[in-house]
């Protein structure tokens, strides 16, 4: 089932990608192929492969349990949140939070998670800021 669904998605992607290629126009001729030909070749090739997969699907992917899936979504959300928080609250605070959060997500106790967050945040700050000489954001909150 999963393979069929993937194949259908790839087929739609190939058509959309190929059709979009037709909009690449230049006013002057640079070479015999121009900007359209290569993407259209790729689209045709992908369409062929996807059609084959549609007719002869192979394996069925084992998707994770709902709880695991939820955890993965939370992990992605945490990483997005980290990227957004990095500038406002600074590297140190944001890293303590995200590392502790990830550790909790992986089954650490709260004090283990807290220690991991504090230690790794400090260690990474030392490594990147002091040893490698990369300025990491101090955070607007702390006047950075």
């Amino acid at each position, binding site marked *: 089932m999963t393979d069929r669904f993937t194949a259908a998605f790839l087929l739609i992607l190939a058509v959309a990608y190929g059709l979009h290629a037709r909009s690449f126009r230049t006013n002057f001729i640079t070479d015999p192929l121009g900007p359209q030909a*290569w993407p259209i070749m790729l689209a045709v090739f992908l369409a062929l492969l996807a059609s084959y997969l549609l007719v002869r699907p192979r394996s069925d992917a084992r998707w994770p349990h709902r709880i695991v899936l939820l955890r993965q979504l939370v992990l992605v959300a945490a990483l997005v949140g980290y990227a957004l928080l990095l500038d406002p609250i600074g590297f140190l605070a944001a890293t303590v939070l995200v590392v502790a959060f990830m550790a909790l997500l992986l089954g650490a106790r709260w004090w283990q998670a807290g220690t*991991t967050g504090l230690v790794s945040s400090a260690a*990474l700050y030392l490594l990147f800021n002091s040893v490698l000489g990369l300025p990491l954001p101090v955070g607007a909150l702390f006047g950075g």
Partner: protein
Amino acid sequence: METLHLLGQGFGVAFQPLNLGLALLGAFAGTIVGALPGLGPANGVAILIPVSFTLGLRPESALILLASVYYGAMYGGRISSILLNIPGDEPAVMTTLDGYPMAKQGRGGSALAISAVASFVGATLATVGLMLFAPLLAKLAIRFGPAEYFALYVMAFSTLSSLTGKNPVKTLIGAVLGLMLATVGLDPGSSIPRYTFGQMKFFEGIDFIVAIVGLFAISEALVFVETLHAGEFIRYKVGRVSARIRDISRSFMTMLRGSVIGFVSGVLPGAGASLGSFVAYTLEKRLVDRDNTFGTGDPRGVAAPEAGNNAAAGGALVPMLTLGVPGSGTTAVLLAMLMSLNITPGPLLFTQHPEVVWGLIASLYLGNIVLLVLNLPLVGLFVRLLSVPGWILMPVVTMVGFLGVYSISHSVFDIFLMIGFGVGGYLLRKLDIPLVPVILGLLLGDDMEVNLRRALNLGNGNWLTLWHSGLSITLWIIALLGLVLPLIFLRRPQHIVDDDPEGMAG
């Protein structure tokens, strides 16, 4: 003589204090990365690329650092295979077959020692091979025109699909997806934007480093969440890490044969280390296993795949340096780094940047000696890493990748793109679409299109120009065989290639 002269210059580069330090550091860090369960060489090198950038290293120094990490990870990979039965990546799978039984019988220390010697023999012979054959191939490659390069790229994808992955169709789908990603940005011929959706950020194309760290490190974190069972860590005792001379001398021929097989399969594009270790093991089993002891803890069953996969790691550097076509996932990551440093691998690399090539070769000789030392007397240090709990390991590894990307771009857009690649990479892995061809496609896409267009331009639009020379015809025939042979030999040994759920062999 010329080789010796150039090698001498290479040692001059390798013995510069900075480069010597980087080789030591890389070997050490690489062994750690390899020893950590579930982290393979491709992953380790991908995470460390941004770090090497931010150090502001010269190209030869950056390559020395990352190639040492690569070799180190190949050595370290055997530790978790032997002691935990958890291979860090696909090539290490074969080492579990006899290594884990040995560990269960209390001969773990002996297995570690023999595999360290085998890794040393394999990696050193491969470095000799690299030194002798790469310049020859580079001389041949000077004669490559656009048509030959286009055929070569097609050949790389076709052999990749036939030699790795259990499903050639899905490998090809991965390759096409990568090639499509490579078309994002300004068209190399006419400079009009393609697939940029009006985003200025996309005009220069998708940053290789952002894509690779996302595909490997972030998707690995998602897999980690899925597979981790909380609280699984035990203390491991290995006993004395030493092997009886008899065991080593008995497996010496095995190591030599494994090295040659590994090197050859490493040179083939796409085949890489997994094929090397697999063929080395099966051949030894046929040749020397008279009492059916393979699979029950035979030292030769540890020596063969370790010599094979370490030799393949060196072999895979040959096409990457001479042709710009990587032979494995990790060399693809190394290629991405060189391209980001504005060094284009290929025949000209040997004449224009001899310090890069020969400095690398000399460093690999030195690195191997360092690795042998690290992996014999000091192996206990790395064994302790096996008991680092996942809830420390995963967040820290993810953060290093994250900060690396942030530190080269300082752009939140790139971070989001990286997370997007991570989620995409996870989905591809779930769908059994391997990641290595995606990365190869992304890396080679531009050159593939440019060479095709250049060839047709030279041939005034006549497609027959792609078959004009004996060299290009040969490449097309190999490409065709790569696609057709798997259809004939469908009863390939499935069990080894099936064990690559991450699709990041070698």
